């Protein structure tokens, strides 16, 4: 009976070991095959400014990192940071002023990459109507500004730098409608360099008008634009997911900015932006390259700490936040990709 | 002045049934005549045909010498933005102010004349409404339940006085009250069910007047005739 009992025990053990092994294997294979699902809320509608995000999605950069990312269109009523907190998105794109405001209100948000190294928000001006060689040249001019928008903060900083007050210039309230600029009521108009400026530039060229761009960075004002954010909770609980997402996203951006992939990038854009012509998309893409990757020695996504600090300082000076937030504490270095 | 209707037929649009069919009658004498019949028999429709408010009927109506026919009914209201006296004043033709005052007295509405129409009782409202019609120019006045909700004594007084004041005018009194029409009306046009031909039947009433007592047995006979004609 004894040997028989022994056999029974060993059989049982074998059964449990096999069962455990099956469970373990199936568990491993589960982790290996089921990609993690995350939502990524963009700042704005699908256009050239989000080409890298779309590229990473369409060309499987996320999939290669075992991530299933739902890239969601943004818009004026969308706020990625709020969605992070509400748990509806795990990653998002937010402007620097949004991040600083959120920090000021106690939101637990971290910046994991900075997409635009140069802020696309610039001013377009007619060169036959005004010459700008220094900030002092703004004196006495009618300047278009979106009250409440980033451009207001930037312009006020520039004016302060030039020791100009609001009385020295004529501020014109800008809306969605470009008519005042096209009608030459205002000759200094805020635009997104890689989107609206392309349409407006084409119109001005058609009318035989000459124009140029006023770039705040040229005068030392580096107000940070769109950056990739996640919640502190996400970073603390799932650092690996955050790393994989950032790597995939920046690889996508890098590939989309590579001139060798130009046609693929345009085709990717065409899938989402059906209204723009190839020529427009091409022009927008060319400009975007200069804004995302202006310096070949600086990797795409690099967080410009100094620019962030300056952005915070501008907001503090203009009382857009009541107290310092030490934004540098939420800026995370980008991983190698 | 004669009112003569010949073979009047009426069918409302989208309705398969006739309201009136080959209806004929003739009223030759002015005074107080009546249109009597059960509810839904077509009295109001006939009244509106006579006053020209309904046009799409078949047959012929002859108004010999009568130009103005008015139709008054018991649901009419006066606008609510000013008092009854003010409204009456506005609709009184020149030279009839004395008549108005006399009628106000007869109708017993002197006390409520300065109130809004909506503040009056139903009986007072009907009296006010009838009064303003009596002030107008007309050859024929159709009174469709115009004295409804007025107590019997007052109604009797009003009817007798109207008859006295307007002896040469045609009145067509629409009422369900068999005693009343028998007593006060000269000729009673009894309107019968659509399936009965002829649809009308004329009965002579007692035509009571201020200065003439009526014979009670004759009144009973008239009432009987009306009931027989309409049943």
């Amino acid at each position: 009976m004894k040997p028989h009992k022994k056999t029974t025990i060993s059989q049982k053990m074998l059964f449990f070991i096999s069962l455990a092994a099956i469970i373990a294997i199936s568990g491993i294979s589960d982790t290996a095959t089921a990609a993690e699902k995350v939502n990524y809320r963009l700042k704005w509608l699908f256009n050239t400014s989000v080409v890298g995000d779309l590229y990473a999605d369409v060309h499987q950069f996320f999939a290669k990192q075992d991530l299933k990312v739902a890239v969601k269109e943004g818009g004026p009523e969308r706020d990625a940071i709020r969605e992070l907190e509400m748990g509806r998105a795990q990653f998002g794109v937010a402007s620097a002023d949004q991040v600083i405001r959120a920090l000021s209100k106690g939101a637990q948000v971290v910046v994991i990459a900075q997409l635009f190294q140069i802020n696309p928000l610039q001013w377009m001006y007619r060169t036959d109507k005004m010459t700008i060689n220094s900030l002092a040249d703004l004196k006495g001019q009618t300047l278009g500004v979106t009250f409440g928008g980033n451009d207001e903060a930037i312009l006020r900083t520039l004016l302060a730098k030039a020791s100009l007050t609001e009385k020295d210039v004529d501020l014109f309230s800008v809306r969605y409608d470009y008519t005042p600029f096209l009608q030459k009521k205002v000759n200094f108009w805020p635009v997104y360099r890689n989107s609206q400026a392309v349409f407006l530039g084409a119109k001005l060229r058609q009318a035989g008008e000459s124009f140029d761009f006023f770039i705040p960075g040229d005068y030392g004002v580096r107000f940070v634009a769109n950056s990739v954010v996640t919640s502190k909770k996400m970073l603390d609980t799932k650092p690996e997911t955050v790393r994989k997402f950032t790597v995939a996203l920046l690889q996508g951006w890098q590939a989309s900015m590579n001139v060798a992939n130009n046609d693929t990038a345009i085709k990717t854009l065409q899938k989402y932006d059906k209204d723009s012509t190839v020529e427009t998309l091409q022009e927008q893409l060319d400009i975007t390259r200069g804004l995302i990757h202006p310096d070949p020695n600086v990797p795409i996504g690099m967080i410009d700490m100094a620019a962030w600090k300056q952005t915070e300082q501008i907001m503090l000076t203009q009382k857009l936040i009541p107290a310092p937030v030490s934004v540098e504490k939420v800026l995370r270095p980008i991983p190698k990709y | 002045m004669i009112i003569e209707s010949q073979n009047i037929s009426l069918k409302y649009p989208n309705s398969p049934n006739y309201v009136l069919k080959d209806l004929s009658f003739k009223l030759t004498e002015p005074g107080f005549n009546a249109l009597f019949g059960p509810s839904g028999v077509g009295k109001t429709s006939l009244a509106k045909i006579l006053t020209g408010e309904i046009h799409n009927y078949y047959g012929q109506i002859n108004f010999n010498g009568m130009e103005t026919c008015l139709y008054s009914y018991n649901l009419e209201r006066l606008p609510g933005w000013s008092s009854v006296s003010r409204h009456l004043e506005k609709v009184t033709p020149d030279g009839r102010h004395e008549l108005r005052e006399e009628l106000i007295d007869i109708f017993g509405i002197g006390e409520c004349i300065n109130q809004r129409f909506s503040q009056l009782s139903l009986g007072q409202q009907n009296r006010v409404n009838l009064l303003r019609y009596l002030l107008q120019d007309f050859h024929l006045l159709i009174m469709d339940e115009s004295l409804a909700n007025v107590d019997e004594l007052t109604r009797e007084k009003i009817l007798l006085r109207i008859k006295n004041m307007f002896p040469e005018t045609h009145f067509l009194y629409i009422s369900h009250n068999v005693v009343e029409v028998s007593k006060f009306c000269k000729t009673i046009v009894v309107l019968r069910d659509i399936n009965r031909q002829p649809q009308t039947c004329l009965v002579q009433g007692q035509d009571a007047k201020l200065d003439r007592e009526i014979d009670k047995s004759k009144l009973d006979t008239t009432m009987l005739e009306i009931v027989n004609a309409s049943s």
Partner: protein
Amino acid sequence: MLLHRRIYQFFIIYCLAVACLFLIKFGLNLSDYVIPGPMDVWHTGIREFTRYFSDVMDTLMVAVIGQVISIFMALLVGITGRRATWFGSFIKVAAYNVQAYPIVAIAPIIFILLGDGIVTRLIIAAMICYFPVLLSVLGIMSEPVNDIEHFYRATGRMRWQLEVKIRAFENLNKLTTVIAGSATLAVAGTIVAEFIAANAGIGYSIRIALYQSDLAKILTALFLIGITLSLYQGVLELTGYLIKKGWATRV
């Protein structure tokens, strides 16, 4: 509805809504960025009260003028279009069709043509509340009040002014409700106009607050809009009541 009842009803609704927000905030442990805290809302309210109040008054002024224009236009067209004539039915069809277009779709055209000044705000406010008022006026004016009108028609006394007066008087409650209701539309229209393209008014301030992701400012603006609108609607209803009372007590 009496004036004070309107105001305390608004207070109840507003407080309930804000309490709900705070419940969500504390229930889900959300930061002040997502939903501002009670003290933040309170301080913002105190800080921005004067500025926002003057903005709301600016908006209200435009809305009131817009509404007066729209009521005047609606009465004019409604009275002209009340008859069952070709023109009358044309006016009705046109009114129904134009109402089908959302004003936000038409607004940009108006902005391009007229710029972003007060005229644009006025026109949009008037357009938004014009059609509902017109439809009501058309409905009221084309419906005869036979029991009153019959006498005047039968005796040849009916004039168009009397007809309009009778129908307006008989439907004064309906008209007052529509006009008070259209006040909401006029204010909402003005705010939309200001939000899209204007340099003044509470809609413009809300847009800036949205740019700044400042929900506390928006809650303050909503409070002031709500209370002002309640007061305005109450005043309109009271005016309607006084007109009716004045009409009904005149000897």
